[in-house]
């Protein structure tokens, strides 16, 4: 250090201190300065004695370091810290740079003397000479050409650096490392900065190099001289391997080819693990067979072989296994492992298939059964039938429809129940010649009342005659499968006001069984609950040419008008074609629950009541209005015809009636909003209803008859019950034989009305008087004259009770007898004390009713019995085992009794002695309470492999019982009779239920009288008793042996016998 001091003179008495001034001429080593004073005159300060203490002058130099000093780098990124010796007091700027060193010596040289532009400022720093050189061949620069280039570049740079200081920072890229940020600024207080060093990716070859990171504070950027030209260095010993990703583009072979991996049990799996690229020499992979010798020479080193393989699951067998559930011998036989060359178990690989031909071959080799979840690809109902290809309908083919506008083909259908509930789907087609009928339960929802629902008549088949409105486009029913011909359709729409037959009734048991009301038989046996088309009238608009209206929902009355309740298609067919479709509909008005979300769409004639109305003081709040559902005020009718429904806020509250429960409203303030929504309260709870659908096929008879007017009409078709034998489940043909006896033939009037109100047990007194005598036996003589015909019309058939609601006889009607099914049915009558007063009358009435069940006397022997041939009809025997002889009522019978209003019995009346027991009141003996029909059937033979069943005969008899009131428990009240009221039990007469039964039994008899069996076989039931029957003595050879075919068994048996005979013949054991 070089300092220049300026002399100072101190005047006498001026002060005691002197201020010395100096200039720094040159920085350098510390110097020791000593000041000496010499006084002019006097002896106080002499040069010898007044020398001060020496002072040392040292330049304040900052220290900067890079941490760490030396870094081994294996990654393409490195971080280091530039650290000051103390927090900066002013701004300090550093500039860093990376340079590559050719050798350890060069690197050490750079690191020891880091250069700082522009002045080469050499100052003592830590010596790098103690750094050990990087291992394995960092100095071997011959392996890569680029390294050589780097070396030369660096040499030049180094020379430049050494020779001249004019080379500016950063000197351009001699290394693949770079600094993303090379300028670092220390703010006052900072002590360190992070330096990031990155490598240019990708790394295509292994790199080993020495890189020096130098940082210095150039004077251009720094005002504070403390750190100017202060520099430091970091030595990076870089050892990077190449990126090991597989570069397929280098591969010379077809990239789609797979390498078949051999079974490593016999072949080494990975003889060269570093051979990553097929057909290409992988750098550093000395075992790669694709590498030429010259390439191998360029490798600096070989990649060490990968161990490969995977540990087997051996833990459970090793001695290290401490699981408590190991075998008890495990400690003795456990495996102790030190190291293993085990490569694991491998499986055979199958090459992937590359072309569709091989795919099919491979698939054909599989044993897959072909069952899969593969989508069969049906998005519409596609019919499957063997006869679809031919023209014309065959039985079972779906009936087709055609939409005229689009020529689309569809299926004719009616709603049918889906699988397991009575909820209906409309997607199941109607099949040709397959009758169907169904009933669908519908919930009363307003959403049903649209033009495209099951309630809309427009959705069903519409007549082809429709011309109102003109040019309608109705769906055509195709008359023959495979063609586009449309079958004519006629429709009849019946309108009914009475929908009780379709709606779930709310009739309860209590209502149907009143305790004090006797119930007997109905007046006439027409069931009012059945739908009778003849009772209905055609809809007023239905002229056969008018398009049916869509159902309309009336928001006022909640009625859906013109809703289809029943639809019936009668399809007339001939051959393979539909000749005519006659559709019959019943339309009615059904009440449906209001859906608050549905609003009237077009031209509403009223304003629907908003659901959350605020009741007004003027509303009739004090009464709990049953008809709350009628909430629509009439006042708004006019104004609302063209406007949309008013929002709730705009509706004047004065126009609204009470819509909430009045009890609630009266207690709460008027302004309080009601807690319940109106539709929920008022419109829910309409009964659900049922729709009935049926399809039946009628043969279009070619024969035509003249009717009374001389017009040709289709001849009547008689349905047969089999040909020739009866078919199970078909109607049993019964009727009344009509003979040439004019008085009978002409005056058939049946059933005879019973003038004494036969339905009731309470008859006029005159009816009760002379029953016994009027019921005198009527002759059983056979009818005179020849046979004409058997009248098989409905009124002459055998019948059974068909119990109605609550199985009361009063609600019941009749049903037919069907072949082969044993039936038990019946109904209940309810009688009280009064009805037991006259047992004769009761007996007569019962018999009267029961006789109506067997009005005929002939039963068809075969299913195709001809009504004109007497031989084809067998006799029905009546309860007294006589052939039934119909005797028509005549006015002169009986003549003996005076003025009896009782009509004579229609049937033979057998003598009924009036016993004294009848005198016991409340008990009636020998009352016919049921009929039992026995029908004898026989298997007459076979026709086309089918057993033909015939009816041989039939008999009807009565079940006769003793009827009396049960005098027990609460029923005992009945037994007080007319005295009940006097005991204050009851004013009215309680009744009790009595069962009236009707049964059918089919009894099979042999068609041919069987021969009487030998006594040994009596009770034989076709079983081999004790396994010792005669026919199983040689069981293996008989037909009874089920193990194998009879012929085969017989052949084996005969062969065995032959073998034994031969043996005997050869051995001659008897000689």
């Amino acid at each position, binding site marked *: 250090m070089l300092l220049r001091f300026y002399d100072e003179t101190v005047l006498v008495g001026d002060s005691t201190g002197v201020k010395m001034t100096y200039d720094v001429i040159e920085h350098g080593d510390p110097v020791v300065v000593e000041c000496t004073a010499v006084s002019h005159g006097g002896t106080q300060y002499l040069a010898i004695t007044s020398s001060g203490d020496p002072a040392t002058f040292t330049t304040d130099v900052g220290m900067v370091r890079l941490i760490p000093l030396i870094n081994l780098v294996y990654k393409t990124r490195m971080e280091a810290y530039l650290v000051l010796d103390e927090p900066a007091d002013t701004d300090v700027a550093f500039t860093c740079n990376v340079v590559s060193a050719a050798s350890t010596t060069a690197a050490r040289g750079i690191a020891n003397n880091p250069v700082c532009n522009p002045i080469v400022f050499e100052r003592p720093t830590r010596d790098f000479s103690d750094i050990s050189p990087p291992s394995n061949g960092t100095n071997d620069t011959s392996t890569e050409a680029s390294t050589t280039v780097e070396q030369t570049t660096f040499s030049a740079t180094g020379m430049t650096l050494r020779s001249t200081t004019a080379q500016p920072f950063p000197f351009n890229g001699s290394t693949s490392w770079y600094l993303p940020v090379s300028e670092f600024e220390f703010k006052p207080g900072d002590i360190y900065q992070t330096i990031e060093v990155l490598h240019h990716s990708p790394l295509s070859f292994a790199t080993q190099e020495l890189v020096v990171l130098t940082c210095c504070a150039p004077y251009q950027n720094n005002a504070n001289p403390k750190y100017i030209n202060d520099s430091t260095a970091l030595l990076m010993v870089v050892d990077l391997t190449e990126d090991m990703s597989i570069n397929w583009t280098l591969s010379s072979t077809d990239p789609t080819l797979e390498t078949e991996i051999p079974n490593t049990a016999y072949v080494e799996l990975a003889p060269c693990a570093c051979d990553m690229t097929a057909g290409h020499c992988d750098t550093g992979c000395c075992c790669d067979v694709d590498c030429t010798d010259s390439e191998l020479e360029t490798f600096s080193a070989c990649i060490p072989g990968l161990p490969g393989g995977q540990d087997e699951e051996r833990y459970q067998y090793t001695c290290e296994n401490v699981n408590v559930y190991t075998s008890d011998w495990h400690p003795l036989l456990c495996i102790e492992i030190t190291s293993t060359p085990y490569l694991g178990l491998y499986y055979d690989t199958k090459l992937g298939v590359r072309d569709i031909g091989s795919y099919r071959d491979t698939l054909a080799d599989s044993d897959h059964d072909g069952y899969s979840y593969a989508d069969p690809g049906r998005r519409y109902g596609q019919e499957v039938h063997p006869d679809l290809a031919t023209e014309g309908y065959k039985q079972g083919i779906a009936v087709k429809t055609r939409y005229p506008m689009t020529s689309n083909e569809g299926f004719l259908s009616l709603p049918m*129940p889906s699988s*397991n*509930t*009575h*909820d209906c789907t409309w997607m199941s087609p109607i099949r040709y010649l397959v009758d169907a009928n169904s*009933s*669908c*339960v519908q919930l009363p929802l307003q959403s049903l009342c649209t033009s495209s629902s099951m309630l809309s008549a427009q959705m069903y088949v519409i007549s082809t005659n429709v011309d109102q409105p003109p040019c309608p486009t109705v769906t055509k029913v195709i008359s023959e499968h495979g063609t586009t011909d449309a079958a004519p359709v006629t429709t009849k729409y019946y309108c009914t006001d009475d929908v009780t*037959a*379709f*709606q*779930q*009734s*709310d*009739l*309860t*048991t209590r209502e*149907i*069984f009143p305790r004090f009301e006797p119930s007997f038989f109905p007046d006439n046996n027409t069931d009012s*609950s059945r739908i009778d088309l003849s009772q209905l009238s055609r809809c007023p608009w239905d002229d056969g040419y008018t398009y049916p209206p869509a159902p309309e929902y009336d928001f006022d009355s909640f009625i859906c008008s013109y809703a289809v309740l029943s639809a019936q298609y009668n399809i007339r067919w001939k051959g393979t074609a539909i000749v005519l479709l006659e559709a019959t509909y019943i339309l009615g008005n059904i009440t449906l629950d209001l859906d608050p979300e549905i609003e009237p769409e077009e031209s509403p004639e009223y304003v629907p009541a908003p659901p959350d109305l605020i009741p007004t003081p003027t509303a009739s709040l004090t009464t709990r209005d049953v008809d709350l559902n009628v909430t629509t005020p009439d006042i708004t009718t006019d104004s609302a015809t063209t406007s949309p429904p008013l929002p709730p806020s705009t509706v004047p509250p004065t126009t609204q009636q009470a819509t909430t429960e009045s009890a609630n409203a009266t207690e709460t303030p008027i302004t309080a909003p009601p807690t319940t929504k109106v539709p929920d309260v008022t419109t829910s709870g309409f*009964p*659900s*209803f*049922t729709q*009935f659908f049926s399809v039946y096929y009628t043969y279009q008879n070619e024969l035509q008859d003249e009717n009374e007017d001389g017009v040709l009409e289709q001849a009547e078709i008689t349905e047969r019950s089999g040909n020739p034998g009866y078919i*199970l489940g078909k109607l049993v043909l019964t009727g009344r034989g009509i003979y040439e006896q004019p008085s009978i033939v002409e005056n058939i009037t049946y059933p005879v009305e019973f003038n004494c109100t036969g339905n009731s047990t309470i008859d006029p007194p005159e009816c009760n008087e002379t029953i016994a005598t009027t019921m005198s036996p009527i002759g059983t003589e056979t009818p005179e004259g020849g046979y004409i015909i058997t009248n098989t019309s409905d009124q002459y058939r055998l019948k*059974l*009770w*068909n*119990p*109605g*609601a*609550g*199985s009361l006889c009063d609600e019941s009607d009749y*049903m037919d007898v*069907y072949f*082969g*099914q*044993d*039936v*038990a*049915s*019946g*109904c*209940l009558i309810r009688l009280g004390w009064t009805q037991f007063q006259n047992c004769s009358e009761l007996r007569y009435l019962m018999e009267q009713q029961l006789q109506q069940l067997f009005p005929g006397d002939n039963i068809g022997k075969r299913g195709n019995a001809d009504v004109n041939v007497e031989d084809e009809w067998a006799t029905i025997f009546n309860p007294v085992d006589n052939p039934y002889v119909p005797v028509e009522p005549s006015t002169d019978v009986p003549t003996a009794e005076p003025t009896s209003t009782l009509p004579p019995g229609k049937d033979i009346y057998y003598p009924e002695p009036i016993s004294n027991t009848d005198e016991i009141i409340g008990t009636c003996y020998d009352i016919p309470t049921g009929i039992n029909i026995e029908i004898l059937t026989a298997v007459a033979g076979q026709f086309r492999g089918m*057993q033909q069943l015939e009816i041989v005969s039939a008999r009807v008899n009565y079940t006769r019982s003793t009827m009396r009131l*049960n005098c027990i428990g609460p029923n005992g009240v009945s037994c007080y009779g007319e005295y009940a009221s006097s005991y204050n039990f009851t004013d009215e007469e309680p009744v*009790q*239920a009595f*069962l009236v*039964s009707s049964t059918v*039994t089919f009894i099979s008899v042999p068609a041919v009288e069987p021969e009487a069996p030998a006594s040994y076989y009596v009770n034989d*039931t*076709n*079983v*081999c*008793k*004790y*396994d010792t029957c005669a026919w199983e003595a040689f069981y293996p050879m008989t037909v009874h042996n089920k193990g194998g075919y009879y012929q085969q068994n017989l052949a084996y048996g005969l062969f065995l016998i032959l073998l034994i005979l031969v043996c005997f013949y050869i051995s001659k054991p008897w000689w």
Partner: protein
Amino acid sequence: MAVFEVYSHPVVVRYRASICTKTTIFMFIVFGLTLVVPFLVAYTSEGFWVKQSVYLEQPYVSYKHQLLMVLEGTTATEYLVWSTYHNYNMLEQQRLRIPIVKSREEDTNRDGKPDKLLINIETPMLDTEQVYSLHLLVIFEYQLFRFSSLTMESMAYIHYNSPRPGAMFTVDGELQFKQNYPLPHRGIVDTYNYPVINGDSIYAADYQLTNIFRDYMDRNESTTFVSAYPVWVSGKGAGKPFIIQATIRYPEETILYYPGFWQLIKLAWIQYLAVLLIFIFIFGRLKTFVFQNHILQAAIERPFKLRSE
């Protein structure tokens, strides 16, 4: 010139000893062992006496046209009954409802025995009445003929519960024979040929299912109705009846029985004889050895003179 054996026959050598000698005692012991040891072997190897056996037979089942039906609604008091027992109908006359019962027995294979019963019961219901549960007892006459002649009255119990009100119930199952003990091999078994339900009774207890089932379960032989496929269909239309459709099949049964005396002896004899032959052979060799080597003393009576003598 070669010489052939053209014929050979055994020569009987007789050994004689008096009764009180070791030889005689030995022979008695061997004889006893020859008979007893095979028995022990056959007996101890299990299955010597065939104590029970089986046979196959399709029963002759007749539907007796007797039924008892209980349909239950939502509440405890809401139920309907019907039966072919008029006393029961009388008891329940407040709940009585007369159905239409249609039944038919089919002999599918035409072997003279019915193979199944199809039964269809339509009970008229008010729309306000709903069925949630049903019990149906069907009564049969059940007969077996092949070994013992069994005749009994048996029952099929069909029942179902559903949380949804029903419109129709279909069931298809089998009437299976159930025996607690094997049947005898012959004779008449009519122990249980009495009514399952005592239709003559006028007491409610005799018609309670609990009592009927308890008595029924006391039987050694009975039948059970087994069906894995009941279908309950809900959604009854207005005015529609509740329909039960049942198919009851009569399958061929495997019947266990006690074999008779002679069958037992025959089967045991076959086993005994098979073992006996082995022991006769073994003890025969033993005796030959003993006597040929003169281990026991016996006088030898040869049919010919030895040359050395």
